[in-house]
């Protein structure tokens, strides 16, 4: 089992509250990703769950048991640190077995667990090396191995791939996903990389300034962001947003596109760059002047500016024959449009 519940968790540092009443339920076996910009409190929240920080108020439950006042050692969790935190003076084998020795586990059992973790992570030939003799990816594996050998209730991973180069990060991401499937263990994963969040998570927790903005599956976050922050944070490039006034159930976008909206007053209309395409001759579109064309091969990213001076980004499949400075009209299917009220909450 490995269910985790946070109930009204608050955390203050020196009188400044950084986590404001977080409520969250994580089911056994779930891979939940905490994502958000720097300083949003995602790592603090993970450390609170780990027991490395104590909450100012609220409850933390693991498998229904209140562990709020328990130390990190008594929570049955394992953590993979951003810096890996491998003991530099110990070999890989000693790093893996150190925690088990603390539990006074029989030597044969320790050896068996270390061997199994080494086999699982393909680090068997590295066991007698020290961390300084390993590459970044190998250190990452050892750090995960150190967590695995303890057979924890849940794994806590604090930006574990952030020190790796882009190629290795992709490989390790796939390995982590495979590992989660194989172990079936609860994992909480902190990252600021939304690709990691989208590809790994069963559910994503989007945090901002110590508060949860939305908790949902990756695709729901993408398709139905609960507010403007999530809409802007999830998806790359970020969603195009147009502030306008709805009157009589209709709103007008740049280029005179008249759309029905279930609201009156100030609203924000959002359209993802991937949902824009060059308008046909009889199709309504947002006119824009292209300021930058990024040809990526399979797709092309167009950065433009509308006649009313608002930035507009579109991702077009293939390699359209467009150049910087060209004027273009970009159309979209109204069904793909997101609508937010003046307070930034989703209304349609």
């Amino acid at each position, binding site marked *: 089992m490995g269910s985790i519940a946070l109930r009204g968790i608050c955390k203050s540092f020196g009188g400044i509250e950084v986590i404001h009443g977080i409520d969250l339920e994580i089911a056994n076996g779930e891979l939940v990703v905490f994502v958000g910009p720097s300083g949003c409190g995602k790592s603090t929240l993970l450390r609170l769950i*780990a*027991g*490395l920080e104590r909450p100012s108020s609220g409850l933390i439950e693991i498998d229904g048991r209140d562990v709020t006042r328990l*130390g*990190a*050692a*008594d929570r049955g*969790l*394992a*953590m993979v*640190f951003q*810096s890996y*935190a*491998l*003991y*530099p*003076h110990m070999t890989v084998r000693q790093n893996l077995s*150190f*925690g088990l020795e*603390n*539990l006074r586990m029989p030597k044969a059992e320790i050896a068996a667990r270390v061997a199994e973790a080494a086999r699982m992570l393909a680090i068997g030939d590295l066991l007698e090396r020290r961390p*300084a003799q390993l590459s970044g990816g190998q250190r990452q594996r050892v750090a995960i191995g*150190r967590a695995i050998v*303890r057979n924890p209730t849940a794994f806590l991973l604090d930006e574990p791939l952030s020190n790796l180069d882009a190629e290795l990060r992709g490989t390790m991401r796939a390995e982590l996903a495979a590992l989660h499937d194989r172990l079936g263990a609860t994992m909480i994963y902190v990252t600021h990389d939304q690709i990691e969040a989208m590809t790994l998570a069963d559910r994503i927790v989007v945090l901002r300034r110590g508060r949860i903005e939305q908790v949902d599956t990756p695709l729901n976050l993408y398709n139905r962001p609960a507010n403007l922050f999530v809409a802007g944070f999830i998806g790359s490039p970020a969603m195009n947003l147009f502030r306008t006034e709805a009157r009589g159930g209709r709103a007008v976008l740049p280029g005179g596109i008249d759309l029905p909206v279930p609201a009156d007053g100030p609203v924000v209309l959002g359209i993802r760059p991937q949902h824009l395409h060059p308008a046909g001759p009889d199709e309504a579109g947002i006119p824009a002047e292209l300021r930058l064309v990024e040809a990526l091969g399979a797709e092309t990213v167009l950065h433009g500016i509308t006649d009313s001076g608002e930035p507009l980004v579109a991702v077009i499949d293939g390699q359209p024959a467009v150049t910087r400075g060209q004027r273009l009209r970009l159309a979209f299917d109204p069904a793909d449009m997101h609508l937010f009220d003046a307070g930034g909450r989703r209304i349609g």
Partner: protein
Amino acid sequence: MLPFVLAARVLEPVLALWQRRTGHAGMIAVFLIPNMTIFGIFVIVPLVLNLLYSFTGGAEILLEQRPWVGMQQYERLLDCQNHLQPMTCREDQFWRAVHNTARFVLSQVALMVTVSMITALILNRRIAGRGLWRAVFFFPVLLSPVVVGLIWRWILQREGLLNLIVVRLGGDPVIWLNDRFWAFAAAVGVSTWAHMGFYTLILLAGLQAIPRDLYEAAEMDATPPSRVFWRITLPLLGPNLAVVLVLALIRAVQIFDEAYVLTGGGPGTATMFMTQYIYEVGFASFLRNPGLAAAASILMGGLLVVLTLIQLALSRRAERMRQR
């Protein structure tokens, strides 16, 4: 400022000409020569003179008036039936000083490393007034050794502060500095007090260089505090600890000033150390023997060179480990 400006104006064309003639290597020589000259006059020349003195005899000061005796001074110093019993040695005072120094080094270095380590561990914790405590422990390092010796003599003398407290508490006064055991203990304790701030600082720097993540990983690994110290802190502090050990060792072998002001080497020869022996034989005693003092200082210098080489090797190792 004006004289410096004028000197620069005058020197500039001379140096420019020198650089054109000799190139890069010549300029290196220009900048090194002043320092090397001072180093040569005040270090190399005395060292060579000292070596020459050690091969001469008599009480005369000027070298040309001293007869050449070859290795006699060394033979005299090393002539012993049993080196562990100074009484059996021809130069028994020297061997008493060697024994005292050895006992001093062993006890003082052990005490110094232990106390510095404990202090560094405490000062590394989040305690109230941590900055103030660090300053308090470092302050004695700033004092002149003579001042240190005098302060503690006033505390430990017959009518000193310590006896005042002992008497107030109903005890009998103790003549601390006239008792062989207490005088030696005072020399060890006072020199430890005077220098521990420096070693504490080195160890504190080492402790602060250990990443906090490692302790958090150990916490997640359910590591008991004693095991954290023995298995994580101590090994990672090893290079700093080794540097502290060797520096303290070198310093302890050189012990002179505080101990001399505090006890004057007494009672008897209980606190006479090698440096004091060299000083007294060379300059202070009625029958002074500069050759014998020079030979003793060469032997002590050899020991210090070995210790310094070890210290350098350990410092380099520490640097390599830090860069890893």
